[in-house]
């Protein structure tokens, strides 16, 4: 399954991400997604992603990285 996403920023600074699957979307949903004007500025959080990005297919073994952030709790 291939997903696309677009991110917008609300007036109060909160982000909103639209997800779209061309495989399962209705014509109306595809049109609505196409008309979303994604924010031109990459957001600083939760990540500095590019807008209009594609959600990656999982790798063959499915393993994601756990990151490297240190183990301490707050």
């Amino acid at each position, binding site marked *: *399954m291939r*997903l696309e*996403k677009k991110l*917008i920023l*609300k007036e*109060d600074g*909160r*982000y*909103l*991400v*639209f*997800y*779209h*699957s061309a*495989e*399962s*979307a*209705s014509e*109306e*949903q595809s049109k*609505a*997604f196409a*008309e*979303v004007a994604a924010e031109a500025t990459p957001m600083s*959080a*939760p*990540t500095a*992603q590019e807008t209009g990005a594609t*959600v990656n*297919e*999982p*790798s*063959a*073994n*499915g*393993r*994601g990285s*756990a*990151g*490297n*952030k*240190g*183990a*301490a*709790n*707050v």
Partner: protein
Amino acid sequence: MSELRWNPTLEEWVITATHRQDRTFFPPPGYNPLAPTQPGGFPTEIPAPTYEIVVFENKFPSLRREAPEPSLEGTELMPVLPAQGVCEVVCYTPDAEGELARLPVSKVEELVYVWADRFEELEAHDFVKYIYIFENKGKEIGVTLNHPHGQIYAYPFVPPIAEKEVGAARRYFERTGRNVYADILQQELKDGRRVVSQNAHFVAVVPFYARYPYEVHILARGERTAISEFDSEERTALAQILKIVMEKYNNLWNRSMPYIMLMHQRPCDGTDYGFYRFHIEFYPPYRTPDKLKYLAGSEAGAGAFINDTHAEVTAQTLRETAPL
């Protein structure tokens, strides 16, 4: 506003969120904040005439990316910290009367991909130590919006139940050299009495140690510790078994079953959690069609659950309940 207050008697954080007293509470249909915004209509949270799946930051969050300073100073005994984190809302249908159980498997699968994407995005934050994906369904659970939706909390600490669970799995591994979830899965499959449904990658059981009468856990057969680790085949299988379990719940008493659905995953601190395993838990609050299971003195005050049923009996009932 929000802050973290340390409880030294239980060694756990409490999140205060005083602004949530004012959050939206069962708005009239024309003011549903999770509906798509119609031309000329009430501007909802979602500025589009329809949508597939959207994720946005909660308007009344318990945790914020840019957390305010605490309202008071803590002490060495009882410290206070900013409530830094992320609270997201996940809307997977524009239909206010819809529910996850009634969506096609392909739509549930799409949601699995979104959950995995959110996990990867949120764990990139240095301040995020644990990502908790969940859904509260039904007034009995305490929802304040009828429109179906899930939530994701990215905590700046590992919450108590996750910490206890991970600690138990670590100690079991140190003692035996084996994964406790793999051993539970092996025993449940061998015994069979508590198995509700299974496919090539997941097994749904009413666990031997169920606390709620119709509690179901979906256990991964593979050595996965987070939803982002599943390959495409596993994601499809997860969507399929999720739908089967939710449909069985609805067909059990021929009505939409309320529940808490939650994911237990590894913490996000870069450590190897190979001794742990991803799983999903469902807690429906009913013990009979018209009797709720309340968390009263023993459960709420002592943490000792009293289950009025045996898992073998409720599992058989769910197993024999058709999913369609």
